């Protein structure tokens, strides 16, 4: 019986800054995670987090303007999967990240938006942001965990 080395690989994709193109990134992320043997829910959460980051790049960095590039780089290195979401739009302000703090009983104060960064922070093990020469890059890291003992 052969022992396979831990997977290592890198995928770089780019989409036009249109919300109706984000699904392609989602499919790529879910496909990679599924092929890596991740649990279905984990794969969904990672797809969700990356989609949220791409949505933010389109809506906020580019103010919803089409015709710009959003680049997503997926790096698999053993037990870690790293997603980099890059754009050349306005800077991201992580300092004002709102907490998703609301009273579920108070219907009129429920959040209708602004949930993306909260979701990303719940799903990912590490989030870093850098801006260099007009290019934003949000890096999301996820460390794969072994499945629980049956």
């Amino acid at each position: 019986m052969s022992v396979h080395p831990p997977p290592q690989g890198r995928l770089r994709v780019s989409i036009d800054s249109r919300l109706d193109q984000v699904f392609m990134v989602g499919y790529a992320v879910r496909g990679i995670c599924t092929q890596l043997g991740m649990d279905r829910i984990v794969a969904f959460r990672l797809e969700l987090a990356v989609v949220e980051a791409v949505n933010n790049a389109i809506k906020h960095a580019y103010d919803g303007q089409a015709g710009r590039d959003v680049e997503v780089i997926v790096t698999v290195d053993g037990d870690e999967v790293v997603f980099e979401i890059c754009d050349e739009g306005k800077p991201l302000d992580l300092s004002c990240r709102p907490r998703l703090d609301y009273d579920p009983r108070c219907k009129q104060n429920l959040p209708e938006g602004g949930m993306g960064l909260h979701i990303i922070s719940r799903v990912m093990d590490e989030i870093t942001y850098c801006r260099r020469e007009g290019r934003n890059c949000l890096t999301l890291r996820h460390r794969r965990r072994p499945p629980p003992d049956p």
Partner: protein
Amino acid sequence: MRVEEEKHGLVMVVRPMERRLDAAAAAVFKTKLVELIQRGERYIVLDLAAVDFIDSTGLGAIVSSLKALGGTGEIAICNPRETVMSLFRLTRMNRVFRILPSVEEAIAGMPGS
């Protein structure tokens, strides 16, 4: 975003027929729900059986529709897949909406059913 509608007494069952309720689909979906509410529908069951992926914009469309009810009536969720439930739990929206495993149970929990 293709949506099916089915009336059961006072309850309108709304069934999105696309697999992804994401930012691309959310605006149209919200418009359809708000139109129903403006037509006078007050008890809505969202049957999410066909939805495999939802993001915060899709969820926001559902929340906006709930707020459009203005405190009268209800939106309940039924048949969510595990993936969809995962988003509701991540955002604690599972504490806002009644979430049932079937259309029948969702309708049964509505007033006047």
